[in-house]
């Protein structure tokens, strides 16, 4: 109770403002980061799940066994089935090949269909499916058949009335299975249509959705046969999955950096708080309290503060995410899941761990104050050593890192990195402070400024660590944000392909290319597509070839094989080489991940079967492929001429400036060419990335707030001694100008040194973070090396001088009082 009363009194008196503020910022940052990652991540996972129609899709050439459906339902998963196959759809005397999709009640489990009431109508989201006896057609089929809502079309032996125009189908994009225009019908009409016959080319999709999807996936995957494939969120839509992973890593990293900065602010303010309470502690001992009781009084006071400030931080964190999430909610195609209590608990834990991780040294110091200190001001009061102080801070940071990332290696990496950086800054900083010493010859202001740095290397070293870490954290977070956003923009540039064109015959190719030129469309090269199966590596059948794991799913079925003379812009040779003009047929380059899984090396002989015919090729290159580029990509690309003898059609991707109108124009000119618009998918992915970008931009503010607190806390800590020195200087005739200039000199030099140290540290930390955690490419930013010391000098110079103004602006009489004390 006494602790609580002390806390209230000290809060009222403003003695704990900075400490409380540092705690609130740390907790608010981590809570909002946690709620954001938790809530938006769940929303984005749902959003991305919509691109699959569910959380998990199992595809096969026959329906999934009833046993698995029952098992999925027993795990609480929702499930529904869709069936896809090509068939002719007729209206009057027109007939078009369409991709029929048969759906059952409940489809889609994630996302919504957009259906328009007429061909020219606007799509409206719906949770329904076509009712029995009706069908929905997409605008492309409606255009090719020249039908509208209300017309009857023939599908197999059935006649279905068109009841809507299917404008958007969330799980359609990117799939190369159903490339023809779409007709969607109800499962109840399937038998009457008599479309499913022995030998029909039918694909069955069983969709599952629910919390247990991952668990179910782990159980079912090993038991699937060679014709069945599982697709989940990340492997189903890599362009979204990788963005999600990186964004989550970034948010957590930024949150941890904020906690580290707030922790530094807490450590500094707690030290000041402890110093302010040394006499109080001694006084309590004279009142008869044991050292343990004194420690309990202050520990309970800190605990109460941590709980109150954490609760405030949690509320702010939740409040901020409501504002932020609401502003970006328009991007979502699914409703946001409500925030749960987990981030609140994490926030409270953050407050407690940060307080005691960073403020325990202060408590130890108060615990050790001898009562005689009340009479003898110069009686030494020993706090814990540096190793204990830094060790406790690292332990606190480690606990939090583990709580948030649940990743022990990453936590270990964070701790080692922080320890190495602090040690490096401490050592280099000490040397650097000595080197700048001669600047005192520049005049009296510089002399007083430099003396502040040189006289007490412990204090100035501590300030240098605080400032360097602040500049480093803000720089790293800003740099990573820039790079992530740039990566995402590169991934989906404005001219990203929005349409795939398939089934282009070799005869149509020249005319098709000419039309694209006329329409102003950009296109990728035309790739011939031949379906073939990989049979042997160096004469050994796959099952007998030594490889990393079991045979990857991608080669357990037929692969799309192609040949090309030019290397795709999203392909990079990581081993070997690309083809040269002198190369003959019979060479192949292999996608890097598949090559790793299959243990394929340069010079290996690969044998394929295309229908009954064998094809062999020697591996000359291993390529890394950016699968999320929306450009056509292949596991195997052969040297020109290798596939000449096989029948093939061509495939490419295009960017049509006006996709709606131009798709119709191309379809009319080349009716046999299948056009697949991925514009809607592209927009959806862009929306998700925009949302992630906003989230990552937002956390930068927290890091900045944390950094600002460190600066202020650091200066607050040194304020009493600054006031005293200012008083003495002024009593000896030092002018305001001299005091002001000496503070400028001191903080400018400290800022420049902090910027330089942060630049060195960013080179080390950046390399590790980019290459080991974020999988981004690192390149040295020379602008950082030059700009950081300058910007940091100006920033710290200004903030430092402003924060220390109290030492200059006190009335002379007051200053005298301080000098005497």
């Amino acid at each position, binding site marked *: *109770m*006494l602790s609580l*009363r002390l806390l209230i*009194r*000290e809060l*009222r*008196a403003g*003695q704990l403002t900075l400490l409380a503020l540092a705690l609130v910022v740390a907790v608010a940052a981590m809570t909002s980061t946690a709620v954001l990652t938790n809530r938006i991540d769940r929303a984005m996972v749902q959003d991305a799940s919509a691109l699959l129609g569910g959380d998990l899709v199992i595809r096969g050439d026959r329906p999934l066994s009833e046993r698995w459906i029952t098992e999925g339902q027993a795990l609480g998963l929702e499930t529904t089935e869709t069936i896809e196959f090509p068939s002719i759809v007729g209206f009057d005397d027109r007939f078009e090949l369409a991709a029929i999709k048969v759906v059952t009640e409940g489809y889609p489990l994630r996302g919504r269909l957009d259906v328009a009431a007429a061909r020219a109508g606007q799509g409206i989201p719906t949770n329904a499916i076509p009712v029995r006896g009706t069908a929905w057609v997409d605008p492309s089929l409606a255009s090719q058949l020249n039908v509208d809502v209300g017309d009857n079309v023939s599908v197999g032996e059935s006649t279905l009335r068109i009841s809507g125009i299917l404008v958007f189908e969330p799980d359609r994009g990117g799939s190369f299975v159903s490339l023809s225009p779409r007709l969607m019908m109800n499962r109840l009409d399937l038998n009457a249509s008599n479309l499913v016959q022995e030998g029909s080319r039918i694909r069955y999709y069983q969709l599952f959705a629910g919390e247990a999807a991952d668990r179910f996936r782990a159980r079912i995957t090993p038991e699937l046969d060679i014709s069945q494939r599982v697709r989940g969120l990340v492997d189903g839509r890599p362009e979204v999955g990788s963005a999600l992973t990186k964004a989550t890593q970034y948010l957590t990293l930024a949150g941890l950096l904020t906690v580290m900065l707030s922790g530094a602010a807490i450590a500094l303010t707690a030290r000041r708080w402890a110093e302010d309470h040394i*006499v*109080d502690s001694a*006084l*309590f*001992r*004279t*009142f*008869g*309290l*044991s*050292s*343990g009781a004194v420690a309990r*009084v202050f520990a309970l006071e800190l605990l109460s503060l941590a709980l109150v400030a954490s609760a405030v931080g949690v509320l702010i964190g939740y409040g901020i995410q409501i504002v932020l999430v609401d502003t970006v909610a328009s991007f979502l195609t699914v409703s946001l899941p409500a925030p749960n209590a987990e981030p609140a608990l994490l926030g409270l834990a953050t407050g407690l761990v940060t307080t005691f991780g960073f403020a325990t040294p202060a408590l130890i110091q108060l615990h050790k104050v*001898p*009562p*005689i200190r*009340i*009479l*003898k001001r110069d009686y030494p009061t020993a706090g814990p050593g540096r190793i204990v102080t830094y060790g406790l801070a690292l332990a606190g940071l480690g606990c939090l890192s583990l709580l948030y990332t649940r990743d022990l290696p990453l936590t270990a990496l964070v701790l080692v990195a922080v320890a190495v950086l602090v040690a490096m800054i401490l050592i280099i900083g000490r040397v650097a402070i000595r080197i700048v010493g001669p600047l005192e010859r520049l005049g009296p202001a510089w002399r007083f400024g430099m003396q502040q740095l040189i006289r007490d290397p412990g204090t100035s070293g501590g300030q240098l660590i605080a400032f360097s870490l602040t500049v480093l954290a803000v720089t790293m977070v800003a740099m990573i944000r820039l790079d992530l956003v740039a990566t995402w923009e590169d991934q989906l540039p404005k001219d990203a392909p929005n349409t795939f064109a398939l089934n282009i015959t070799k005869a149509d190719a020249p005319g098709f290319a000419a039309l694209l030129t006329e329409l102003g469309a950009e296109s990728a090269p035309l790739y011939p597509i031949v379906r073939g199966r990989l049979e042997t590596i160096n004469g050994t059948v796959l099952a007998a070839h030594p490889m990393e794991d079991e045979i990857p799913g991608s080669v357990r079925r037929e692969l799309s094989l192609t040949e090309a003379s030019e290397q795709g812009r999203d392909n990079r040779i990581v081993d070997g080489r690309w083809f040269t003009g002198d190369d003959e047929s019979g060479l192949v380059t292999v996608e890097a991940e598949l090559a790793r899984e299959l243990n394929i090396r340069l010079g290996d002989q690969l044998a394929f079967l295309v229908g009954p015919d064998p094809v062999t090729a020697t591996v000359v290159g291993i390529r890394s492929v950016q699968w999320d580029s929306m450009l056509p990509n292949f596991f195997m690309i052969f040297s020109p001429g290798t596939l000449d003898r096989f029948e093939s059609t061509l495939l490419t991707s295009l960017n049509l400036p006006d996709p709606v109108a131009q798709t119709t124009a191309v379809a009319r000119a080349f009716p046999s060419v299948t056009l697949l618009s991925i514009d809607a998918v592209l927009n959806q992915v862009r929306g998700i990335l925009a949302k992630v970008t906003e989230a990552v931009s937002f956390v930068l503010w927290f890091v900045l707030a944390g950094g600002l607190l460190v600066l202020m806390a650091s200066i607050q800590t040194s304020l009493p001694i600054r006031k005293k020195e200012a008083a003495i200087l002024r009593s000896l005739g030092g002018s305001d100008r001299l005091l002001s200039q000496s503070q400028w000199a001191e903080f400018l030099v400290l800022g420049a040194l902090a910027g330089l140290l942060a630049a060195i540290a960013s080179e080390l930390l950046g390399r590790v973070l980019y290459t080991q955690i974020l999988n981004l490419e690192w390149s040295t930013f020379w602008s950082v090396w030059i700009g950081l010391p300058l910007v940091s000098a100006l920033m710290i110079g200004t903030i430092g001088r402003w924060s220390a103004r109290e030492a200059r602006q006190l009335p002379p009489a007051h200053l005298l009082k301080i000098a005497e*004390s």
Partner: protein
Amino acid sequence: MTNAQVLSVSSVSHGFVDQDGQHLPILRDVSLQINQGDSVAIVGPSGAGKSTLLALLAGLDVPNQGEIRLLDQSFSTLSEDARAKARQGSVGFVFQSFQLLPGLTALENVMLPLELAGVSVKLAKQRAADWLTRVGLGARLRHRPRMLSGGEQQRTAVARAFVTDPALLFADEPTGNLDRRTGESISDLLFQLNQDTGATLVLVTHDERLASRCDRIFTLDEGQLQESTPCSV
């Protein structure tokens, strides 16, 4: 003197070891006895060890040699925490620089020793207010130390020292930070309360006028303690 002995010092020697490992003696073979209700002044030049002696007498430190008995307990053998417990409620302090908690009001500062001793807030508040009124600060209960003059701060400190009804009051240069007039009013207050409550007063001072008001005066010089001629109050 017929009153009971409250403090006894027998053959106490004390000193420090400096940075070079040299032993620096401060007190040599000091002995004295103080009875209940006495007012005792310890005087001496700066650096003579007056504050060190006061710290030893109050149990804030233990001597290198000799024995100190406070309220029938040998402080020389007690642990620091046991000494603190022995002081609780029995010993009050007044310091040269007041040592008020800056974040607390005058009332809260005076309540503090009672709260630390486990007295209820209501009772502590009432007793603290009574004592502040008694020292002339009834109208300044809600003022923080920085809003009080030096004399008022020291009056608050005096109220805080007496609020637990201590048997012994130690004062370290109680008028050292005050002007002469204010200093005199504080010393009037101290001696008045000494008489009213019957508490023993042990003060360390440079101020000869203040010392002369005590029953007994001890002079500390070069580590030796000598009792001077008693003065009239």
